[in-house]
């Protein structure tokens, strides 16, 4: 995914935070995904954010190097886009 392109929560993704965990369901798939602390942190910051912004947020919060953070965030975003829980923003003409 392009580092400058934003993603947003899918309109049919329903989520709530329970202490340090976020649970998300998709109205379509009827499937619960329960994020760990890092995933929960990211989920709450990935709506209308770019990859670079998410990487910066993770590095500011967790003790992790740039390359690891970027790889983890990319994997997280790509997986959720594939599952329909995140949508890439439309490309401006």
């Amino acid at each position: 995914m392009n580092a400058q392109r934003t993603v947003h929560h899918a309109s049919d993704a329903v989520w709530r935070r329970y202490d340090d965990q976020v649970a998300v369901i998709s109205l379509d798939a009827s499937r619960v995904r329960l994020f760990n602390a890092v995933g929960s942190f990211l989920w709450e910051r990935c709506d209308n954010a770019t990859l670079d912004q998410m990487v910066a947020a993770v590095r500011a919060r967790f003790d992790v190097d740039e390359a690891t953070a970027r790889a983890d965030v990319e994997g997280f975003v790509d997986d959720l886009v594939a599952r329909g829980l995140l949508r890439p923003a439309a490309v401006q003409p």
Partner: protein
Amino acid sequence: MNGAELLRSLALRGGRPMGVHLQVADRCNHACQHCYQVQGEKGELSFEQLRSIMDGIADAGVFTLNVSGGEATLRPDLLDILRHARTRGFAVRLFTNGFLIDEAYAAALAAIGLLEVHISLYSGVAHEHDAVTRVPGSFARTVGAVRALRGNGLRVVLKTPATTLSVQGARTVEALARDLGCAHTASTDLTMREDGADDPWAVRVTPEDLLREGMIAPWQPGPDEALAREEKLAKYPCGVGRSGLVVLPDGRLQACTDTPNILADLTQQGLGEALRTAPERELFEGLTWSRVHGCRDCDLLPACQRCHATALHEGGDYLGPYASACARARVRYGAAAGSLEVAPPSADCDAGRDPLVGPYAIVSPGVIRPVHDVRTAADEALAARFAWVRPARPAAARLVTIRRKAGGAPLQSSAVEPCSVPTVERV
């Protein structure tokens, strides 16, 4: 643990319900005899009031919102209500009879995005369904609504409570549900009407017929009976006050649809504050089978299911055994044992001990004996603290939850667990 159980446990760990049932309409276009509701007495809230209540429920971190009535589709602003619920991030279920849902309405619901639409269908045979609703043609309209909803991609759950008017309804609806691509759930319990009338029970299916129809199963003690008992004692008979909160059409909060105790008025305070301050919270959070006197000492406990509100209505004690649940447990045990004999009560029972109400001891295969219902000091203290759980007067005279609250909004003049989220993924 499936998805629904996971969400419920996460919510309860945080001291909040997973879902809330929001009744938005105090009216209905069907006239089912088994219905627990009394229409037109409570009044309804304006959209602005409902929006404020939904905001409070969302702020309390509730995941699912079940929007129901009466018949919710009788409100002209129902789509606005559902849109606001989605805006506040709820997974929304609509409970409806489907009578007013046509293709355009189904498309509008699909555009809003709902988790599920729950529709009551009493039989796969038109005249049997219509006999329950007492509205000719209702079967055709409801099935038409289901087709429209499915055609627009919405998940539909068909629900069939057993009544004497459609004893085989669950079986016929199950087949229809398969054809229509819907999920199906059947229930065997009817509760009293909220004004205390017994009308719904006139069409209650007997335990013997439920057994014959395969809706309840024979039961006999297993080799690990002691363990089974211990596990059941730690469980909750239902989600009352924990996962089954209900907001009445006038904004009052109840612990479930049938428990006649008002916890709060959500037009005056948010759900979060109501949950923090309601003294009944302590009662419901501890309301496992171990808190139900009589039942906890009964050998038929593993065969039993109960509704606390029905216990209050039938036996005058929210936390005690009651006849219809005991009858069902006896039928299940008798079916497995081949026969059932109820021996005279044990010597320590009070004079006039009703043999049709537990607790029972199994004295030999197929023979049970009524035994003393032990009430502890803790039971008495609970009943003293929450007087409504064991009222001094007969329960039926007290179960009037339909009165309009003081200053309540007038009825509008215009003409409706758990959770089917089966998969859990941890990331």
